[in-house]
């Protein structure tokens, strides 16, 4: 699978197991929370039950948050959109970031991911897959001894050991508070008063303290007074109650409230709300305008309608990174779907939804074949994943017509590949193909290509070749040479990996011929050239292999195609290795690995690691060779792509030689290697590769400990006040040695925290949006680069889980010394010690500029920057005052000017500077300083200087 995003890693990033965000705060529930926090984990399965709208999800979230610190991990699995119980376990696996593994049952993948960790798994909205949840919960609790499950469901799972915990109605004071808070969101001037108090209490009682019902009622205060709401609810409910009872069962109370709330909507909103229920998860306004328009709604009406529904708490607005998205609460969505069905609009609206997302997927597909070259397209697809999944499943199951299903699976392969979701891909594709009667030939052809690509990724070369060969004649009639070219290139790959080198060469040459006139960066050409180069390696034609691989490297550089560049560099490494050029191989693989890690490409990482493993074996570094070979095997299983590295036979031979060399030690090293994380493998590989390149000689820890002379320490100097400068010995570290700004940033970050920082803390400061896996990777790459730039692996030490800069190697770090010396000088000043003023002045001279001025660093540095700047400015003010008191006006003026240079709106410095000038008889200078200051004030803050400054100015003016 040449250029593409990595499977697995992208999946984990797309589904970070974060707790859901609620836009409004949880009202009340203190007692319940205390009770639940105490209970969670005691019955290992605790299920919050209650009618829709009773606040189960809200309470589960708050509980999870409260108990999170007593678990190693908390994972939140939202099941509300899961239509098909058979996807329950794969869905849990995806949320846990445990990618599919060929030949391993999904449940075992999940069990493997949880293992013996003390983990809290939250299964939210189990009711529509309650039996499947019951089975899964039972199996997981049996297999994972320290797992606790918190579920929310309208219905108890009713399995052994479960405690079903009924979410109680809101206590009356909490209910009132909720009503008032929500009412204020609709009408900010709304207050709780003695006059409306009884009506509010009556509403809350009427609504059985059901939070959602109360919210829906409160959202109406813009139009209706609480008294009116209470009366209307009373009327609405009287019809529903029977006999002597005045209360409804809770599930009917909510239903009645929804009916009531719905009945109050305008005609257009009544049309719109049910249609919005066809979206799965959240939706964009653009999608709603297409899917929900139609008699009597124009596309232009949708925005107004959605806004009106947001006002009434029936639609929730979510502010995203780029655009606003909307969502229906699950309870409201279910209600909407019922209404839509009653009105007979369900099928038509669903069809518009399907078609909209089909067209969206088809539009996006061409940019995805290039993989990570279009991260924004991929991100957009991930945002719409729930909708795409629902639409595709519906299209595939749509009996009357095969076309939409075939088109969907034909366009989705690269998205599935990036997500590592081959199981789902296989099921949907087979289903679509099984109903292909009457389908258009081209659509069938594309669906078959998807099927062939899935088989290729999963290592079934015979099936893959067969499906490509069936697909190609169907595609011949289309003018889509790009798809044909890609299919030919990948058929060549399947033939090559299946062992038929001769046929592969023919097919690949055919692909290159077909796309001969396509643009240079044509992805089909790039694919075909990559595999043709690989085939040339197999044929022993190293010159051709090298030429083709280098062409792709050049294309990758020219067109900024990171995936192409990374894969081709790894290929170059293998070719060079086959030619006996270890140094060139190691140089290529170092660059390849850095790229693969940066873009999170699992397969590319694997083929690059393969090359290093062979180097290590050849160079008699048997331990690392075994660790790498074993680690790569485990890594491949994790990314679920069976596609082998470049030379499976070489790998087998290398393993046999190593087993013979190492004897009994082999097994232990192999097991050790299999347990390594990918980032650790990358670290080992980069160290090994660096050993054979002339540029950077990395010294291993043991050698270093043996020979490091004491005098060689204390040679790192870091100047961070002002533009960052780093010296090793007397030499500045060249900017090219850093690769990027991140390693420098890590250096300063660690220096600012001499007590050390954990990987997670660094991750939060550096990559706040990255998944745990990404943080691990990024951290290790950055650390590796830092060590390389400073030329000594010992410069960063690890104690427990904290990384620290090695204090013994540090000669100078100006920011720390500045703070320390300044404190001493100010203390001396306070005690009127001799020479204190000079001490302070020399200290302040170290401040060349703001902390990390001009460095592209994260927000973590802001507090340090501001603190250091404040220290500097305050000290200068103090220094100026001392000079002024000692009648050294020139010196004082200098200090104040420096303050104003740092902070040009510092009023006290202005007044003091004007006084200095006046004292020196420089009246016009003083007036100019004021004038300039007043101008800045006006333009920047639209304000005038303080009275004090102005009065001084006027006095100076009059004294002419």
């Amino acid at each position, binding site marked *: 699978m040449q250029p593409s995003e990595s499977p697995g890693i992208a999946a984990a990033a797309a589904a970070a197991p974060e707790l859901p965000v609620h836009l409004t705060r949880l009202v009340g529930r203190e007692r319940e929370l205390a009770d639940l926090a105490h*209970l969670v984990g005691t*019955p290992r399965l605790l299920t919050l*039950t*209650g*009618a829709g709208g009773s606040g189960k999800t809200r309470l589960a979230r708050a509980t999870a948050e409260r108990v999170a610190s007593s678990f190693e991990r908390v994972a939140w699995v939202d099941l509300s959109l899961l239509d098909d119980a058979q996807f329950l376990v794969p869905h849990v696996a995806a949320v846990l970031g445990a990618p599919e593994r060929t030949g391993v049952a999904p449940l075992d993948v999940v069990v493997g991911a949880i293992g013996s960790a003390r983990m809290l798994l939250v299964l939210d909205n189990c*009711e529509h897959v309650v039996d499947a949840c019951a089975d899964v919960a039972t199996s997981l609790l049996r297999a994972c001894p320290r797992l606790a499950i918190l579920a929310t*469901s*309208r*219905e*108890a799972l*009713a*399995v*052994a*050991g*479960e*405690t*079903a*915990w*009924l979410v*109680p109605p809101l206590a009356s004071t909490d209910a009132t508070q909720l009503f008032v808070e929500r009412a204020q969101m609709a009408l900010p001037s709304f207050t709780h008063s003695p006059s409306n108090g009884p009506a509010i209490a009556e509403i809350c009682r009427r609504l059985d303290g059901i939070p959602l019902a109360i919210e829906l009622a409160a959202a109406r205060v813009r139009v209706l007074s609480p008294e009116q709401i209470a009366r209307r609810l009373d009327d609405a409910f009287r019809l529903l109650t*029977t*006999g002597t*009872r005045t*209360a*409804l*069962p*809770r*599930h*009917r109370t909510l239903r009645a409230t929804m009916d009531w709330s719905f009945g109050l909507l305008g005609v257009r909103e009544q049309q719109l709300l049910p249609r919005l229920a066809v979206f799965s998860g959240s939706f964009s306004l653009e999608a709603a305008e297409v899917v929900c328009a139609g008699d009597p709604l124009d596309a232009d009406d949708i925005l107004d309608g959605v806004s009106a529904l947001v006002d009434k708490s029936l639609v929730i607005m979510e502010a995203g990174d780029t655009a606003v998205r909307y969502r229906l609460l699950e309870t409201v969505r279910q209600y909407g779907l019922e209404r839509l069905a009653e009105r007979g609009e369900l099928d038509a609206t669903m069809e518009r939804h399907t078609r909209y997302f089909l067209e969206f997927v088809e539009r996006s597909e061409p940019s995805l074949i290039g993989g990570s070259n279009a991260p924004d397209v991929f991100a957009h697809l991930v945002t719409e994943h729930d909708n795409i999944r629902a639409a595709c499943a519906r299209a595939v199951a749509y009996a009357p017509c095969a076309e939409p299903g075939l088109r969907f699976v034909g366009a989705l392969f690269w998205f599935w590949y990036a997500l590592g979701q081959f199981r789902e891909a296989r099921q949907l594709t087979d289903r679509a193909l099984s109903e292909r009667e009457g389908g258009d030939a081209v659509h069938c052809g594309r669906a078959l290509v998807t099927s062939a690509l899935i088989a290729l990724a999963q290592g079934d070369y015979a099936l893959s070749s067969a499906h490509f060969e069936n697909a190609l004649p169907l595609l011949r009639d289309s003018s889509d040479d790009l798809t044909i070219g890609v299919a030919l290139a990948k058929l060549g790959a399947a033939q090559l990996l299946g062992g038929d080198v001769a046929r592969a060469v023919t097919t690949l040459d055919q692909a290159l011929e077909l796309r001969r006139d396509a643009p240079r960066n044509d992805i089909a050409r790039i694919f075909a050239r990559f595999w043709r180069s690989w085939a040339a390696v197999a044929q022993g034609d190293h010159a051709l292999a090298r030429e083709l691989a280098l062409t792709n490297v050049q294309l990758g550089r020219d067109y900024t195609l990171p995936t192409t560049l990374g894969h081709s560099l790894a290929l170059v490494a293998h070719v060079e290795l086959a030619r006996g050029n270890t140094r060139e191989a190691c140089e290529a693989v170092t660059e390849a690995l850095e790229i693969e890690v940066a873009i999170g490409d699992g397969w590319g990482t694997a083929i690059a690691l393969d090359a290093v493993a062979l180097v290590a074996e050849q160079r008699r570094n048997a331990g690392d060779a075994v660790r790498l070979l074993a680690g790569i095997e485990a890594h491949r299983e994790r990314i679920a792509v069976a596609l082998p590295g470049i030379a499976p036979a070489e790998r087998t031979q290398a393993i046999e030689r190593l087993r013979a060399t190492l004897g009994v030690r082999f097994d232990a090293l192999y097991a050790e290697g299999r347990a390594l994380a990918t980032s650790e493998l990358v670290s080992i590989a980069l160290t090994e590769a660096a050993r054979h390149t002339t540029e950077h000689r990395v010294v291993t820890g043991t050698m270093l400990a043996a020979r490091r002379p004491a005098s060689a320490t204390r040679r790192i100097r870091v100047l961070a006040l002002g533009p960052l400068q780093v010296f090793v010995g007397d030499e500045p570290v060249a900017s090219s040695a850093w690769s990027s700004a991140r390693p420098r940033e890590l250096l300063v970050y660690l220096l600012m925290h001499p007590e050390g920082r954990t990987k997670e803390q660094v991750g939060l400061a550096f990559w706040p949006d990255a998944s745990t896996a990404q943080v691990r990777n990024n951290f290790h790459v950055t650390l590796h680069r830092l060590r390389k730039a400073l030329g000594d692996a010992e410069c960063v030490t690890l104690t427990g889980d904290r990384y620290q800069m090695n204090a013994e190697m540090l000669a100078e770090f100006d920011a720390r010394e500045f703070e320390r010396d300044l404190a001493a000088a100010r203390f001396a000043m306070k005690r009127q010690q001799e020479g204190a003023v000079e001490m302070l002045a020399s200290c302040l001279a170290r401040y060349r500029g703001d902390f990390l001025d001009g460095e592209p660093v994260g927000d973590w540095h802001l507090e340090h920057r501001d603190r250091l700047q404040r220290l500097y400015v305050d000290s200068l003010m103090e220094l100026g005052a001392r000079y002024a008191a000692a009648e050294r006006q020139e010196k004082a003026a200098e200090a104040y000017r420096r303050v104003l240079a740092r902070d040009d709106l510092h009023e006290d410095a202005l007044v003091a500077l004007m006084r200095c000038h006046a004292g020196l008889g420089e009246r016009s200078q003083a007036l100019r300083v004021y004038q300039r200051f007043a101008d800045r004030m006006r333009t920047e803050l639209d304000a005038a200087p303080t009275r004090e400054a102005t009065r001084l100015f006027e006095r100076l003016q009059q004294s002419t």
Partner: protein
Amino acid sequence: MSSPTSPAPLTDVVAEVRVGDLTTRYRRSGSGRPVVVLQPSNDVDAGWPHLADLLSGHCRVIVPELPAGVGDAAAWLRDFLDALGIERATVVIPEQLGIAALDLAPLDTSGDDRP
């Protein structure tokens, strides 16, 4: 869990329900439309095994243990069923319990049973 005296122990599971501070243990067996069997002897292991067994071929049989100190049995039963998420159920009550006059109106106002 099953007492040695009960000839045909209820299959399936024992679980519990919490409503406020009140915990109710229950046994569950079979599947289908829910039937709640209140028992003369307040012990889920010793109760009406025969009847429950008969029913569990066709129904989801739920046998709760009436917790000590319950004053309003109707409210208790309503909460118990709410907590299980059961909207409609057939309830079998032994005469000995003396709560035949349970006010169960809310349980059957919604019309027909679920399939």
